[in-house]
């Protein structure tokens, strides 16, 4: 029996078990004995039986939707307030279910669906001119490896230009870049940026103004591309509908500590399953800002880089989408990167992502829904993608609502144990479906033992949940109230700098 078949059987068995337990929950309980019935009449209004809500109710109210809310402490919380809270809780549960279905749909598509790699086989062609922008801000530890790897890539030399974008570095980055450029005359065009707005988008904007290539490929300075990577990333641009392309990021420092190992699995889930499923289903693969590229004419058509964008990648993905350009994902175009090795760095990174993503959501959600250039399925997926980081505060709010309703309401079934179970099961510290996604990704990557670390991902998700919630709260309340400017925060590097020569 093949691994794939065994996995499929296990999945079917789990699904059958789930169906069985659900059918048992729906089953009508046996008629109670007279003595038990008398006892039941005297019992309190709510039940601790988690499945009681699924038992058949009176005619036309079989799940108890029309049960009236009845506050136990009307002086503290009125029944009307509790009713509003109940409907909010319904909303949270509905949202969580939507995301759960999304995760399962993506994972099942990735495991059993047809896989789309339409541009992977493009081997020969009139390759367009390319400029590789290497974003660098105090990158003395990693910039040399990146540039040397780029010098070795398999791409027509006369069509390739490498441009390290040294954004106001205060360390040895400039010296290292200049030395490598001098050793490879005509191949590297350094751009040392000494003034202007801080941030990657602003730096890329200034660099793009100096470039006349058809395609811009963007790498962060810690990325070490393989020989064939550039052709793979450029091939989708033969398609005149593709405005941006994204490759797969693979953590290099996986073995450093528990955090890096957890992030390695999380990245697998994000790329191996999530991004590839979106590519398979012709949804909205996301340009990730690095190990990817953009067509210069498309970039100009949408107004260039937005230097005030905190997540220039998400920002660009949506602006391209709204103008009818597609982003292609290349799962086999893999490139190593460093992931954060300490929790404070990880927290800062995810807070920055969260703010940037929310910023894009505020800017483009309305336009996306109204656009005539975007298909319905892309709109749905695009909206869900925009809302990913908003789900953390919504989940926490759902917990708070459930707990308050549990203690304050005496009547409605949803405020009982079932409500807590709903939230705990589907969303506790993340979302079980997300774990399924990660599990499938690790399986597809062929790594066998690391999947055992999966339960520890709960803790990583908890940290993310709280970090994103705090970031969102700060963004919505303090940044808005005090008109604070959103600031770009650089992720720390862990490789040792090369010695001075």
């Amino acid at each position, binding site marked *: 029996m093949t691994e794939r078949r065994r996995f499929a059987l296990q999945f079917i068995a789990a699904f059958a078990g789930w169906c069985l337990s659900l059918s048992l929950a729906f089953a009508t309980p046996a008629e109670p004995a007279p003595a038990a019935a008398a006892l039941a009449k005297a019992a309190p209004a709510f039940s601790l039986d988690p499945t009681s809500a699924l038992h058949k109710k009176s005619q036309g109210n079989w799940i108890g939707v029309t049960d009236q809310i009845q506050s136990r402490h009307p002086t503290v919380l009125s029944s009307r307030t509790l009713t509003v809270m109940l409907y909010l809780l319904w909303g949270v549960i509905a949202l969580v279910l939507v995301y759960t279905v999304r995760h399962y749909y993506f994972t099942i598509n990735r495991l059993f669906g047809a896989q*789309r790699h*339409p*541009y992977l*086989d*493009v*081997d*020969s*062609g*009139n390759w367009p001119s390319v400029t590789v922008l290497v974003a660098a801000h105090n990158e003395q530890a990693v910039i040399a490896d990146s540039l040397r*790897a780029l010098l070795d890539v*398999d791409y027509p030399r006369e069509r390739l230009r490498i441009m390290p974008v040294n954004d106001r570095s205060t360390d040895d980055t400039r010296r290292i870049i200049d030395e490598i450029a001098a050793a490879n005359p005509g191949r590297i065009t350094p751009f040392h940026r000494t003034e202007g707005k801080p941030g990657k988008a602003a730096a890329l904007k200034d660099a793009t103004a100096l470039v006349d290539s058809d395609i811009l490929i963007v790498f962060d300075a810690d990325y*070490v591309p*393989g*020989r*064939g990577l550039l*052709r*793979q990333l450029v091939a989708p641009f*033969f*398609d*005149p*509908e593709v405005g941006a392309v994204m490759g797969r990021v*693979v*953590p*290099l*420092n*996986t*073995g450093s500590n*528990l955090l890096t*190992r957890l992030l*390695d699995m999380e990245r*697998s889930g994000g790329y191996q399953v999530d991004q590839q499923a979106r590519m398979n289903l012709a949804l909205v693969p996301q340009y990730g800002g690095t190990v990817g590229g953009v*067509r210069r*004419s*498309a970039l*100009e*058509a949408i107004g260039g880089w937005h230097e005030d964008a905190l997540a220039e990648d998400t920002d660009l993905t949506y602006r391209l989408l709204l*103008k*009818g350009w597609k982003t292609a994902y290349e799962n086999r175009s*893999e*490139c*190593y990167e460093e992931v954060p090795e300490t929790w404070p760095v990880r927290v800062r990174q995810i807070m920055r992502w969260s703010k940037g993503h929310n910023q894009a959501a505020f800017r483009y959600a309305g336009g996306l829904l109204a656009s*005539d*250039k975007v*298909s319905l399925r892309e709109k749905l997926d695009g909206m869900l993608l925009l809302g990913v980081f908003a789900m953390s505060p919504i989940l926490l709010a759902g917990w708070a609502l459930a707990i308050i309703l549990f203690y304050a309401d005496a009547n409605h079934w949803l405020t009982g144990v079932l409500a807590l179970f709903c939230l705990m099961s589907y969303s506790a510290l993340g979302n079980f479906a997300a774990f399924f996604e990660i599990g499938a990704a690790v399986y597809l*990557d062929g*790594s*066998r*033992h*690391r999947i*055992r*670390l*999966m*339960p*520890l991902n709960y803790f990583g998700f908890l940290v993310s949940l709280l970090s994103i919630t705090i970031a969102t709260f700060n963004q919505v309340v303090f940044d808005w109230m005090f008109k604070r400017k959103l600031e770009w925060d650089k992720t720390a590097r862990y490789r040792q700098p090369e010695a001075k020569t």
Partner: protein
Amino acid sequence: MSWIILFFTCQIVLFLLPLLPSLVEWRVRRDAQPLKVVREYDGNIKHFANRFRQFLNEQFAEMAQVTGKSTVARSGRLATGDRYQLVGADGKAVISEQEIGAATVDQLVLGTAALELGQDMLYEKEVFASGAINTGSGNSFRALLARGDITLGEQCDVLRWAHSDTRFVASRRARLFGRVSANQELVLHGETRFGRMHAPTIRFGDTVPAPLPQPATRKVLERPAKLLDDSANRWLAGGDLEVPEASFHFGSLVARGGMTVGAYALVEGSIKCHGDLQVQAGARIDGAVVCSGNMTIGPGCIIHGPLVCEKTIEIGAGTVLGSVAVETTVTAAEVRVTEGTVAHGTVWARELGYVIPAANIT
């Protein structure tokens, strides 16, 4: 008190028990290496041929000295236990009665000059020749490498790969399952099945029909009434798009539905459609042709850019894809090419490639 301690101990054990595999893996680190990213392999079609050539240079360095001089076949055994046979200048491999009986040659056949191989045999190991390789019909080869031409007889199979430093010719009904490449030219005849191929020139069939006459003038393509977007020199149409016969357009065309490019039309740009695409006879497209549905290229077309299709491409006789100066790629799940077509570069059928014999052209 002791009961309370026992209770909490049990609670901790119950909590930690499901985490035990995680905690063990965390501490033992059996799978803590980064995922493998192959950095050196660049997807070159000649990858296996180059590795085999390297292997020959290491194992049979003397072959360079004895090339063409030894007239007596010699056999031996490699350190791995595999048998090999060095074939002399006469080019005749010695095949034992036992091998003839089993119709299987289970040794490396290495020709120091040209090789002449018989028919109806299975060559389980690689075959190499310093000169050309000519084979009879009905043979199956694991892999072939020659510094000269490779000419396969009818109904021959290549199971893994084949490479010629000059020219590779597959006679009718060949089945080329793996990678096939040549430094100068590939020629495939009717009813041949193929997978991935690369050569500066790939000819399907021996003869190419005369080019179709081009119209003296072409009308400029009218802008459709409703376009979703027309920025970046690209017209984006929401539904189907039709480029009329003998019309001309400078720029790229994208249709969210199907697309038809009329006969003798000229598009100086790339085209893409989400539905089926039909390019009619004598049309010329200077850029790429991309299609999510099925693609039909009529006879006598000229397409310079890559052809990327997610389903089936069917190409008519007399069509020229790419050029010697600028090679191109044809890729689809299924590629069906009529004899009389020429492609320059790569043709890659992910599921099935098939050469339609000229006699079947309707």
